[in-house]
């Protein structure tokens, strides 16, 4: 099982990532992906993401390992951007390869739910009249809680 996790400022090419994952996960019949973008709601000018690098890498690796325990996966690719991102920019990418589609979909959604809730990122929103830190959201906690068992 190939696993690659990167947290960096650079943009990424989803198509190239899918092709690379497929090349590493030879027998894969299914690749599910998720790409998240900065939404330009309410005149948002930019979003700046801060993280705790040592902890972020460890936590994401732990969640990916948990996904591998739950589903028969052939490969996982996670990219999360940090720094200042403008509306429309790609912010997160998860791709999961498996023999069959249900495992690929479920594991991809599982990793995304954890990333959106538990990964140690903090977001600051930037508007014309200033900046504000984003509060943790209860709805995302619910999404992550559904995987508990």
């Amino acid at each position: 099982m190939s696993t690659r996790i990167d947290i960096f400022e650079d943009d990424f090419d989803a198509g190239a990532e899918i092709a690379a994952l497929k090349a590493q996960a030879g027998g894969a019949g299914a690749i599910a992906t998720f790409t998240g973008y900065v939404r330009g709601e309410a005149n948002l000018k930019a979003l700046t993401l801060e993280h705790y690098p040592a902890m972020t890498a460890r936590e994401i690796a732990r969640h990916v390992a948990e996904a591998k325990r739950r589903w028969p996966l052939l490969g996982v690719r996670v990219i999360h951007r940090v720094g200042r991102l403008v509306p429309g920019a790609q912010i997160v990418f998860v791709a999961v390869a498996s023999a069959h589609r249900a495992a690929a979909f479920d594991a991809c959604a599982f990793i995304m739910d954890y990333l959106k809730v538990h990964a140690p990122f903090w977001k600051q929103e930037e508007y014309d009249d200033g900046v504000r830190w984003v509060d943790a959201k209860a709805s995302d906690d619910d999404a992550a809680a559904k995987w508990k068992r």
Partner: protein
Amino acid sequence: MKLLYFAWVRQKIGRSEEMLSPSSQIATVRDLAEALKARGGGYAEAFGDLSRLRAAVNQDHVALDTPVSPDDEVAFFPPVTGG
């Protein structure tokens, strides 16, 4: 002991990390937070309401009653907002 601050905790304190030789009175994360709060200024603001803070010891989320030792890396931050 290495201390790390993130998001508005970092902003209020005015730095992202510092080294500390903790006094022998500091047994838990809560003791550490109270000692930092007692410094006043930005520290008092950052640690004014501990219910708004989260902490990690050696990159693991912990409760405030978790013990700390001098060679730990302790981080304080707001609840994570995720990616």
